[in-house]
């Protein structure tokens, strides 16, 4: 019971923040919440099921371009375009998963990395349509649902929060469901899970597709809320960042991704007041995490204090 209370409290807190946050942080938080959805998707694949993918940028981009191109090239309104983005993420995850899940471990990491690279290069190759490296700006008029202009600060924040809320609660439900327990089992001891009657390929594919739906939703949301799609979101950086966010916040913990995105965002924000060495911050964070704190913030807290934290 306290589990649901905690997570609902987080949502209420985020809702309440809109009244107190200064404008700069207001937009930041909207961005953080959308990226946290992406990170939650990655957590489902990596933290829960143990699939270390290095190609999740492909799924984010699928959602982003699925929605963005539906709006610019097909002229769709925002709501169906959003849906298109979510579906695109899931379908891309299915396609990649069917092939990549025939491998495991290091090979899996490399295969996902390669598919994502191919995706990034393809976006560049079809520059005239996709906008290539510069990307495309989505017209303000197209970014409205039912008359509500999502490019304005408050509607945007609330839309981001709505997306995050749905994603968070769905994630919580998944982790506590039978499927969620099986996904954890696959991570912990695949051979044993197999001998309990669970099909490893099917379970991992399900995890990847769900992860893809989350990534697609994040990409779609980002496109509509921030009005920009670009090839950089398909680049390797956006495959590394979710790994970093999840490790930092606590792999396998439902609230971990949010914590990871939040901490990393402000770590870079604050440090850029002193230095332009963002890459260094990311690199050092990864090293410190993997050497000294592999469980991340919430993971360590769960181990020491709160074993009931999902």
């Amino acid at each position, binding site marked *: 019971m306290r589990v649901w209370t905690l997570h609902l409290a987080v949502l209420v807190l985020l809702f309440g923040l809109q009244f107190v946050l200064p404008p700069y942080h207001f937009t930041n938080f909207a961005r953080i919440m959308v990226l946290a959805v992406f990170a939650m998707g990655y957590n489902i694949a990596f933290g829960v099921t143990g699939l270390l993918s290095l190609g999740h940028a492909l799924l984010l981009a699928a959602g982003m371009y699925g929605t963005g191109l539906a709006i610019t090239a097909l002229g769709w309104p925002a709501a169906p375009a959003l849906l298109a983005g979510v579906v695109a993420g899931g379908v891309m995850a299915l396609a990649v998963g069917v092939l990549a899940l025939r491998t495991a471990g290091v090979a899996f990491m490399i295969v996902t990395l390669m598919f994502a690279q191919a995706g990034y290069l393809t976006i560049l*190759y079809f520059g005239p349509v996709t906008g290539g490296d510069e990307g495309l700006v989505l017209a303000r008029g197209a970014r409205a649902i039912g008359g509500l202009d999502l490019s304005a600060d408050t509607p945007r924040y609330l839309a981001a929060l709505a997306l995050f809320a749905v994603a968070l609660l769905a994630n919580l439900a998944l982790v506590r469901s039978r499927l969620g327990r099986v996904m954890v089992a696959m991570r912990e001891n695949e051979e044993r899970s197999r001998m309990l009657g669970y099909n490893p390929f099917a379970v991992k594919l399900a995890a990847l597709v769900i992860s893809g739906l989350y990534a697609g939703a994040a990409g779609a949301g980002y496109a509509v809320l921030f009005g920009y799609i670009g090839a950089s979101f398909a680049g390797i950086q956006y495959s590394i960042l979710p790994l970093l966010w999840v490790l930092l916040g606590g792999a396998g913990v439902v609230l971990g991704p949010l914590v990871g995105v939040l901490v990393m965002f402000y770590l870079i924000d604050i440090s850029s007041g002193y230095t332009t060495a963002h890459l260094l911050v990311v690199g050092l964070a990864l*090293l410190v995490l*993997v050497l000294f704190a592999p469980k991340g913030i919430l993971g360590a807290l769960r181990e020491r204090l709160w074993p009931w934290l999902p």
Partner: protein
Amino acid sequence: MDFGPFLLLAVMEGLVAAAVLALTAVGLSLVFGVMRVVNVAHGEFFMLGAVSAWFVTHWLPGPPVVGFALALILCPALVAAVAAAADLAVLKRLNYQPQATIVATIGLLYILQQAALSLYGPEARPVAAPFTFNIQFPWFGYSGYKLAVVVAAAVILTVVWLVMTRSRAGLVMRATQIDRDTAQAFGINVDRVYAGVFAFGAALAAVAAVLIVPIQQAHYLMGGDPLLMSFIVVIIGGLGSLRGTVVAALLIGLSDGVISMFFSPTLAKILATLLVALVLVFRPQGLFGRRAG
């Protein structure tokens, strides 16, 4: 230019690319073969080689040959030292566990990139070639230096092969690769071998970069491409097979060069990345590797 000569030009360009690629990929292959570590920062060792070569040639007065020769010796040594330090400080502590080492080498990648950005800057800068003479073909002139690169790479690869197969150091490396625990039982200091191999792999990438930098220019982001291409080569050639790596480097370097010239470099890379993904999925032992088990 007619098709024939154009093709010849493309092939020669591809050969230069293949030469550099072979050196870089062999470095990566050695590290994975002996240590079972996937070093995502391998491209950054390449970049460090190029950037440090710029520093050496820039600060050294006199004819370019001297600066370049010094760079050829100093820079790989410097990069090797950095690599050995990274291995002892980080990778060893992680016990070379696969998932953790990949994350750690990603962190290393960012740190090295940042170091270059901060100390060298975001611009791309050229390095003077040690000598410039043109070989005149009937249809076009071709840089003699480029051909020298191919020869140099071939020589270095031969030396590496001799070291691996004929020398005691090579024997120790191969023993550690086959069975780490038994090697340790025979008194081989595995930690030192690993540090040495990691350093050696990095040095090879650095040498390749020093050779190519007069042609290419040094830039802090130049490591991404060599990393990707070496991965492709090592996987298609079969992990742990030196011969496979060299053959794959030739194949991929040549086809990349040819496709780049006739179509587009981006398309060539798309095909290459998809190819390696499919090879890993359907034929994981590559072309020459042995299937485990």
